[in-house]
């Protein structure tokens, strides 16, 4: 096997890998990034401003792009030739990005910091575990991420919802004003969203032009995606090599136990290849990085690399999700105007309730959606749930006109506590088309999460009642209150856990493998817990901190 040599090998080009490439090239290191999908640059490849009617599919989802054919996200829960399996009786749906920038291309840009309490939940309520680091360790890096990437929001001073360095938030849309009022009346907290979308020019990138299509990728680079904001400047240093269509398979080690490099399959030829580096950084996604470690077996590491603790693959979590949509008669006969806005809600509801008064231990935030968006392949579905009750012909056509844009909805996104029933391992029989053993998932929501989903549904119903609306669907005990299947919210975390004790964790407080001194993990794998916040901003801050640590250690000649 021929191997090219670099200072640092990074596996994955999303939030974690993109940040590592950015930081380490700036520190003067020669970096190679392996990406399992093709190159994709938003300035060139985005479908921004395409009309859905430019396609016979009207923008509907495909196997490669489950969120729509014009969505930027190549990948999905079901990738041809790359299966995964589930233990009998369990459901976990594993979303994988397969493109430069990974899942930073299609995400909601909800960029929340974890709060001080989120790093020490066991100390507070005895459940889960504390992180080996605290908010004060990450705060300087959150600040740097804010300054580098750009984020809008408002300074609120709320407990456990740390403020950042914000650009001004955009004015709310019509229905967001209504939701604000309803939220105020029932004692919830509704504040401007915190999204990594530019409302003023920032670091050479222009401000948002409010077409609402962040999920298609932004040709202007006015939002955050790894290729446009991190990898492009990293390329400009001349120190970054990106190898696309490179399916990383294992971390190759030297006789002394240190990482030598990464073995991968060139998807264009099917050949086995390898790149070498003084340092290896895994940022392939929590589960893909765990898979690589478990597949890096040798006589020296019979349970997989860095897995003396047996913890690799354990403590898998996702975000708890439940949703409710409603018909709002007040939104009928609107004054037509362009209400696209940014690619996401302009308001959200952070968790400010005391769980000690409730029958479940952790919180959730609420996202708001709806209104008069661009009609696409799912437009105006479920007309039978509106007062017209169904029908056809001219009365139906008029009913559609009347009800267009009158649906708004809420999505609860809550914290799952790691439990022993949720984990992944290598399937003993199944390989993917490259011959790489695949992951087998085990999953079970605990009562904590199901009760949280019930509380979400009750809160949504209360908000909708305040708004004078009618729920368009409901979920009760028979469906565990509409809780989404594991993996559906695409916030997989925890499978390469961080800790000070090598017997109970895989990586240390710098995200360095306890057992392999030049191997680091820079994705969601090291997270000790979820939070009632989306994880991307914390992945970025952690990767920045880890990369900074690597750069300093390299300067000192320690790596």
């Amino acid at each position, binding site marked *: 096997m021929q191997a090219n040599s670099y200072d640092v090998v990074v596996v994955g080009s999303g939030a974690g890998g993109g940040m590592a490439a950015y930081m380490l090239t700036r520190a003067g290191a020669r970096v190679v990034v392996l990406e399992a999908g093709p190159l994709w640059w938003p300035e060139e490849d985005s479908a921004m*401003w395409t*009309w*859905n*009617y430019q396609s*016979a*599919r*009207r*923008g*509907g989802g495909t196997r490669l792009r489950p969120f729509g054919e014009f969505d930027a996200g190549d990948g999905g829960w079901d990738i041809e030739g790359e299966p995964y399996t589930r233990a009998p009786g369990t459901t976990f749906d594993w979303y994988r990005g397969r493109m430069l920038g990974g899942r930073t291309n299609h995400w909601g840009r909800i960029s929340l910091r974890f709060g001080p309490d989120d790093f020490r939940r066991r100390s507070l309520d005895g459940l889960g575990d504390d992180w080996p680091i605290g908010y004060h360790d990450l705060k300087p890096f959150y600040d740097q991420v804010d300054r580098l990437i750009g984020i809008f929001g408002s300074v609120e001073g709320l407990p456990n919802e740390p403020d950042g360095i914000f650009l001004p938030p*955009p*004015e*709310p*849309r*019509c229905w967001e*004003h*209504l939701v604000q*009022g309803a939220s105020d009346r029932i004692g919830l907290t509704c504040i401007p969203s915190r999204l990594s979308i530019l409302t003023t020019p920032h670091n050479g990138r222009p401000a*948002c*032009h*409010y*077409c*609402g*299509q962040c999920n298609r990728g932004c040709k202007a680079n006015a939002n955050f995606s790894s290729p446009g904001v991190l990898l492009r400047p990293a390329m400009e240093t001349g120190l970054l090599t990106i190898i696309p269509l490179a399916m990383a398979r294992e971390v190759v080690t030297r006789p002394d136990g240190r990482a030598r490099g990464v073995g991968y399959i060139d998807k264009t030829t099917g050949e086995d290849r390898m790149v070498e580096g003084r340092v290896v950084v895994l940022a392939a996604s929590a589960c893909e990085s765990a898979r690589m470690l478990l597949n890096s077996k040798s006589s020296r590491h019979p349970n997989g690399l860095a897995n003396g603790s047996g913890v690799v693959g354990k403590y898998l979590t996702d975000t708890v999700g439940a949703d409710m949509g409603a018909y709002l008669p*007040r*939104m009928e*006969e*609107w*004054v*037509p*105007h*362009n*209400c*696209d*806005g*940014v690619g996401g809600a302009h308001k959200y509801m952070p968790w400010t309730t005391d769980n000690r008064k409730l029958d479940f231990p952790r919180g959730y935030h609420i996202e708001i959606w709806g209104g*008069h*968006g*661009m*009609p*696409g*392949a*799912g*437009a*105006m*579905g*479920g*007309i*039978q749930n509106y007062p017209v*009750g*169904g*029908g*056809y*012909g*001219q*009365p*139906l*056509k008029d009913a*559609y*006109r009347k009800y*267009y844009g009158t649906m708004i909805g809420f999505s609860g996104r809550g914290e799952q506590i790691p439990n022993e029933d949720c984990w992944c391992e290598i399937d003993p029989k199944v390989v993917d088309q490259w011959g790489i053993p695949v992951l087998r998932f085990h999953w079970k929501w605990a009562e904590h999460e199901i009760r949280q989903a019930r509380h979400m549904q009750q809160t949504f119903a209360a908000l909708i009642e305040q708004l004078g609306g009618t729920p368009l669907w409901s979920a009760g005990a028979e469906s565990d209150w509409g809780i989404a299947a594991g993996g559906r919210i695409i916030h997989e975390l925890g499978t390469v856990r961080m800790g000070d004790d090598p017997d109970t964790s895989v990586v240390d407080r710098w995200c360095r493998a306890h057992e392999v001194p030049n191997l680091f993990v820079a994705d969601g794998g090291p997270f000790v817990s979820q939070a009632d916040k989306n994880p991307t901003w914390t992945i970025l801050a952690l990767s920045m901190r880890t990369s900074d640590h690597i750069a300093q250690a390299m300067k000192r000649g320690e790596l």
Partner: protein
Amino acid sequence: MDRRDLLRLLAATPFPVLLGASPAALEQAVRAAHASVADPGRYQARFFTPAEWETVRLLADLIIPRDERSGSAGDAMVPEFIDTLLAEGEEAQQTALRGGLAWLDRECRSRWENPFRMLSVSRQTTMLDAIAWPARAHPALSQGVAFFTRFRDLVAAGFWSSRIGVDDLGYQGNTFVAQWTGCPDPQLRKLGVRP
């Protein structure tokens, strides 16, 4: 034909100028509607058989007819959208649609000895009246109701996402906005957010 049938027929007929027209003119309109559907055009259906294709086109225009403000589902190439979705879709969805069309024809044959596409418009509307409102449909027709609900959703999605549909709804976005100013004052006043 009772008054309700007449209203339904008028609703389904893609010629709004006919409101208040004579029986002869009505008949002419119905013939024209059938004639427009009978012309298969240049599109070659990928999923539907020729007989299914005729029914799909007919149903689509019965669900969303042409009126003074915009064209019909057929004008918006909705049947082509549905055919594409199904040709590329999953087997369960394909079976549900194909089976639903077969259910419809069998139900029509048992009532009137002809498949849906060969019925008079008044009988077609009688059939649709029985399955187009789930809450008041007879439980014995539940499979037909489920099919029609699914089919109507496809027609709506195809129509309102078309250029014709987007223009009809007054959607003004998908463009460059130099300065975002939020919800305009007249709308805020209408919603009661601002006095």
